[in-house]
């Protein structure tokens, strides 16, 4: 009987320790128990970064659109005896727009004394960025292959592009480019500055 009571005392003390740890882990003061059991974060091996191409560019970024989107694949039905799949992730990233100034040529800049006319190409989306650190898996059911996940990530990028266009990124981009260049040319001493920007498609 004495042994049983001592054993129960020990169990009770362990339970108390766990219960003291748990609320502290919940509020983030201590690591969670599951993460302690799992061990440290997996570390990738040190491999080199290889330069494939170096390109001289002339791009003027004039607008950025930050977005956050919850992507739900819905239930993906799989053949009989295979579990259905579903992936919900949060994508965070940005869309950059502006002008590709490498399209400027001799005829794009016309100067007459203290006046200047600059013909810019239309503003366009230059980059849609959602890096791996911008994806956060929320729900993952079943075995999602890398190719499937890649397809969803590419789709999220298309959604970012569409949202940015709907928010008027190209119009704002053109306006910001005009203001920026106008200020620059006035600082260069031009009294009349005309920036011509065709409408973006």
């Amino acid at each position, binding site marked *: 009987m004495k042994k049983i009571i001592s054993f129960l005392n020990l169990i009770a003390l362990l339970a108390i320790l766990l219960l003291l740890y748990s609320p502290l882990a919940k509020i983030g003061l201590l690591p969670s128990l599951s993460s302690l059991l799992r061990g440290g974060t997996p570390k990738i091996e040190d491999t080199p970064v290889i330069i494939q191409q170096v390109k001289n560019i002339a791009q003027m970024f004039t607008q950025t659109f930050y977005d956050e989107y919850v992507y739900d694949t819905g239930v993906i039905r799989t053949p009989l005896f295979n579990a259905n799949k579903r992936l919900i992730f949060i994508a965070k990233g940005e869309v950059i727009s502006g002008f590709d100034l490498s399209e400027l040529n001799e005829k794009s800049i016309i100067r007459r004394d203290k006046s200047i006319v600059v013909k810019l190409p239309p503003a366009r989306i230059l980059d849609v960025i959602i890096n791996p650190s911008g994806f956060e898996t929320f729900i993952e059911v079943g075995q999602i292959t890398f190719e499937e996940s890649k397809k969803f*990530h590419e789709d999220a990028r298309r959604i970012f592009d569409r949202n940015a266009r709907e928010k008027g990124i190209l119009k704002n981009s053109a306006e910001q480019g005009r203001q920026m260049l106008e200020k620059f040319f006035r600082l260069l001493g031009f009294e009349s500055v005309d920036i011509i920007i065709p409408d973006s498609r």
Partner: protein
Amino acid sequence: MNADPQKKPRARKRLFILGAVILALLAVNVAVPRRQAQPLLSARTLKDLAELATIEYSVTKIVSYKDVAWYGDRKILFETAATVKAGIDLNELADQDIKLEGDSGVTVSLPQPKILLFNMKPEQMREIFNESGVLRSNFSNEEKDGLLSQGEIDIRAKVATMDILQRAARNARILIESWLKKMGFTAVRVVFKEKRGRR
């Protein structure tokens, strides 16, 4: 077998107190809410930029991970690629950074170049190898994203040590000089402002 008769009730009493403590702690555990992640306030916003990108590096990296255990291994290998653009932030260009010298001379002091954009496109990534032992679970999507994120951090760090900023500065100088010459300036000088301390 002449155990102290007073010891038994004392042990039971202790057990009773411990039970009460457990119940109280259980109540605390239920009451303490799990920490919630702070929502991003910057979502869905348009912001003005004034940046001139003058160089683009396309780089690749193999991301590999081996999880070796006595009950089976898990191994995965990805081929990843990233585009990095560097240039100058024209927002840092102040009025006094452009100095006119007569009608045909000008000196422009540009800010120091920096990395403006880092992009790892999903379509440029490939899973080359993925194998898990019989007793091991397959790599989840979340784990794969975690490993690729580490690859991203590594590429960012290694590209920063390459000559991308020197090339960006050289190209910015060539570009600005050629534009100013097209505008009719004959004596053009493009310099870079002194490096400031780390921000």
